[in-house]
Structures are given as C-alpha cells and as structure tokens.
C-alpha cells in the first residue's frame, strides 16, 4: 500500500501540442516533491493529468496499486489524493465553512470527520475560524490559499497536490504556507507534490525536485543539489 504516485512515460497532448512529452516520475512517500519550470513547461498539465481532468495520450499513472487512468475524476479524492487547484480554486459563492465541508462530503463517516476536520483546520488557520460564515469571495489571497489547503486536508489525504500556491501572495504569506506544508509532511507523513514557478521558495521546503522544460523532465534530484547547481538555476529556474 505504500507504493506512492508513479508516472511512467506520460504523454499529454492538446491538439498538436505535446504538453507532456514522456514524463516519468516516482514520488517519494511522506516527502515533499517540487515540480519546477517556466510558464508552459507542463507543470499544471502534469497535475491535471494525475487527477484525471485531462486524459493522457500514452503512458501510465498509478497510485497505491490503483490505475489512475481508469479512475473517474470524482473518485480520485476517495483514493486519498487531494488537489489544491491553481488560482486557489475556492468556490467564492459559498461560505468558508461550506467550502471546508465540501472537502469531507464524499466520506461515509462525514459527520464525525467534518467535526474533527473543521476543528483541526480552524486551529491550523485561525483567520478561517473568524470568517467561517463569510462568503469566500470576501477573503484575502492568503486566506483563500489557506482555505483551499484546509479544504484539501478535510478529506484526510495521503497525497496533496498543490498548483502554484505562492502565486500572487506576499513573501511573508508564502513563507507561512511553505512552513505549514513542511510541518504537515514532517508530522503527519503527508506526501506533497508542489508545483511552483517560485523555485526558490519551493526548493526551500522540498525534499526533492524535478525540473520540467517543454513537457520533458530535464533534471531531478535532491532539492539541495538542484538549488546548488548554478547552471540549472540559471537555465531553468531564473534565480
């Protein structure tokens, strides 16, 4: 059951464009894996292919013994994979608490899980507790990111996929979010796939990283090694 997320030679195309061109990836359990690269490198497509919103043209994706390509989008979350979409993906018309409730709604033991989960999330992100009955569109960018992560945690996932969590956030907020991810991984053994354009802050918390360029993996390894490789940094990471 501990075999985590494994991608093998995945090809995803949009018309004639190969957004993913033979990506293989073995995500380490209980660790944070950063997926880095420039705009258009295929980072978001990678996540959308894993969670089934886009179906690949070739390759295989497995998670804990399940074939994800044969799993409908709606069932992915029940396998323990939670997704924090790009642009936060909170449902702005719903209240904070309703957004959080949605996270646990698929569970058969949702009554108990919702009560426990809400308590945990509110403790982790106190600003959400204060605004629980407000519509999500009244939240600030950082609060929305907290809400999206909190909602993902409501499903008690073993794998958390995050798409550009630092986008548009102040550095201080980004640092807080990254610290939270670090703690979740260290204390609860959560596996995290962190897609980021902000390579510097992603590498600061990640255990390992892969760098995508034009749909291909051009480098992978321990986060510290990649951060120390000046050539790579200049070529693909822009810092």
């Amino acid at each position, binding site marked *: 059951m501990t075999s985590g997320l494994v991608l093998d030679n995945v090809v995803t195309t949009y018309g004639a464009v190969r957004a993913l061109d033979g990506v293989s990836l073995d995500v380490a359990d209980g660790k944070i894996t950063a997926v880095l690269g420039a705009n258009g490198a295929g980072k978001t497509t990678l996540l959308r292919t894993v*969670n089934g*919103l886009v179906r690949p043209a070739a390759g295989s994706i497995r998670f804990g013994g399940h074939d994800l390509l044969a799993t409908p*989008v*709606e*069932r*992915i*979350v*029940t396998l323990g994979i939670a*997704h924090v*979409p790009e642009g936060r*993906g*909170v*449902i*702005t*018309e*719903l209240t904070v608490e*309703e957004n959080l*409730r*949605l*996270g646990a*709604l*698929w569970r058969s033991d*949702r009554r108990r899980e919702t009560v426990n989960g809400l308590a945990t999330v509110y403790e982790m992100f106190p600003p959400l507790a204060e605004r629980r009955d407000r519509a999500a569109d009244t939240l600030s960018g950082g609060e929305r990111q907290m809400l999206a992560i909190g*909602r993902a945690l409501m*499903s008690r996932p073993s794998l958390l996929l995050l798409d550009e969590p630092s986008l548009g956030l102040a550095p201080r907020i980004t640092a807080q979010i990254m610290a939270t991810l670090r703690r979740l991984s260290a204390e609860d053994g959560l596996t995290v796939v962190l897609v980021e354009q902000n390579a510097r802050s992603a590498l600061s918390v990640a255990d390992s990283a892969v760098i995508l360029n034009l749909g291909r993996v051009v480098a992978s390894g321990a986060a510290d090694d990649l951060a120390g490789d000046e050539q790579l940094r200049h070529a693909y990471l822009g810092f």
Partner: protein
Amino acid sequence: MTFLNLVISGAANGVVYAAVALALVLIWRSTGILNFAQGGMLMFTTFIAWDLVHLHGANYWVGLVVALLAGLVLGAVVERVLIRPIEGGPPINPVIVTLGLLLLLEAVAGMIWGSGVSSFAPEFSLNDYHVGHQLILFSPDYLFIVLAVLGVMVALYVLFQHTPIGLRMRASAFNPEVARLLGVRVGRLLTLGWGLAAMVGALAGVLIAGTQPGYINPNAFDGLLILGFTAAVVGGLDSPLGALAGGLLVGVIQQLLDNYVSIDLDSFYTFVVLLVVLMLRPSGLFSRTAVRRV
C-alpha cells in the same frame, strides 16, 4: 381600494410566474442554459394531471403529485438525453434543442389530447373573499397557490442551504471542475437539478390551469413561459429570490396595465417590460453581480 385589489391579484398571479422563473433560474444557474422547453414541459405534465383527474376520475391531489413526479422524471430525462450530448458546444445549440423540444411536446400533446381547450377544475373555490362588504380580489384557490409556491420555495431553500446534497448541487453549479475534484458527481447533480426545476414548473402549470375555465391546450403556456422568463430576467436570472421578486413585480405590472390601459395588449406588455428591463439593467434589478454572464 381598486388599486390595492389590483396589486393583490397581480401579486397572486405573480407567484405563479415566480415559480416558472424559478424553474428557469435553477437551470440557468447550474448550466448557463435557458430552458425554452419549460413551457412545453409544464404543459405536458399539466395535461397528465388533467387526464388523470378529468378523464379517469382521480383525486385532485393524486393528479398534482403525479404531475410533480412526471416533471421530475421529464426534467431528468431531458438533461440526460438531450442536454448532456451538446454540453460545451456553441451556445446557440441548447437554444435550438430546447425550442425543438417545445415544438415536439406541443405536437405530441396535440396528438394525444387534441388541440382544443380543456378546463381543469381547481380544488378550492375561485370566489373572492369579502372583508365586511368590501370585495378582495383574492380567493381560496389563490391562497392555496401562494402557499403551495412559497412552500416549495422554502423547501428548496432548505434543500440547497442546509443539506449535503444541496451543498453539492451549489458547488457543481458554481464551479463544476473544483466540485469534481472534491468527489462531487457533477453529472448526477445536474440531472437532479433539471428534475427539480421541471418539478417546480409542473407545480406552476397545475396551479395556473385551475384559475380560468378553458385554460389548457397545447399552446396555452407559451405566454406563461415568456412571463416566467421576464420575471427571471427582472430578478437577475441567477437568483432564486430575484425570481420571486421578479414574478411579483411582473404580475402586478401586468395587472395594472391590463386594467388601466387595455387587456387586449396583455401579451405585448410582457415584451415591453422585458425590453425596458434589458435596456436599463441587463443584469436584472435584483442581481447581486453587475457583470452579465452571457
């Protein structure tokens, strides 16, 4: 007193328009589709009830419940069979498909029940109330209509706001992709949404059919659809409460114009009201957002 009476009876009619508007709003909000077939669908379910009550001697309540269930099933089937396949296509396609369904339902109703007019006897009296010697343009039947529609609206409110399935339905409507990632089976909820909307429409059909002798025939509900659409647009097209407010407003305006100008122009007023609203505030009078979602 005349003016007040006109407002009362206009508002009572408006409650029915609000129900039709609500049926349109529920579908527009979840799919961005305007269901032009709604008039035909509620005509068909009303005929089913009429057939049971007047041709087969069933009890009024049995007829009403069967009409509601028929609406639920019809709405769900329409979503699955006709709407699902054209999802994501050009926006003109659902307009044409729902209009096609309108024509088809009216034709089939004409084949089964004929094109002449029929009367649906109301369960409650249409004789107006008196307060002292003063006549009030409001009858037990209209009291029933108001209570039934408001009851359904409250029930839907509770369903949407306070149950897990309602939360799923709202999530699917507002952000289907995120909802799917959270494990919500958006497709099923859309089907349910169409079913519920058609059920509200079915209620409106049976209720209004009883208010006038000789009301029902296959084309009788075209005007009701336009009135419901106008009410929905006045209310902002995506707001259930706006649908209620829009329905009341349209009902009152219609009654006042009928009385003070001429009843002959009844169906023309609807066009004028719609035109004025769309020219002044295309997003509706009660919409929360000023942005037009088209």
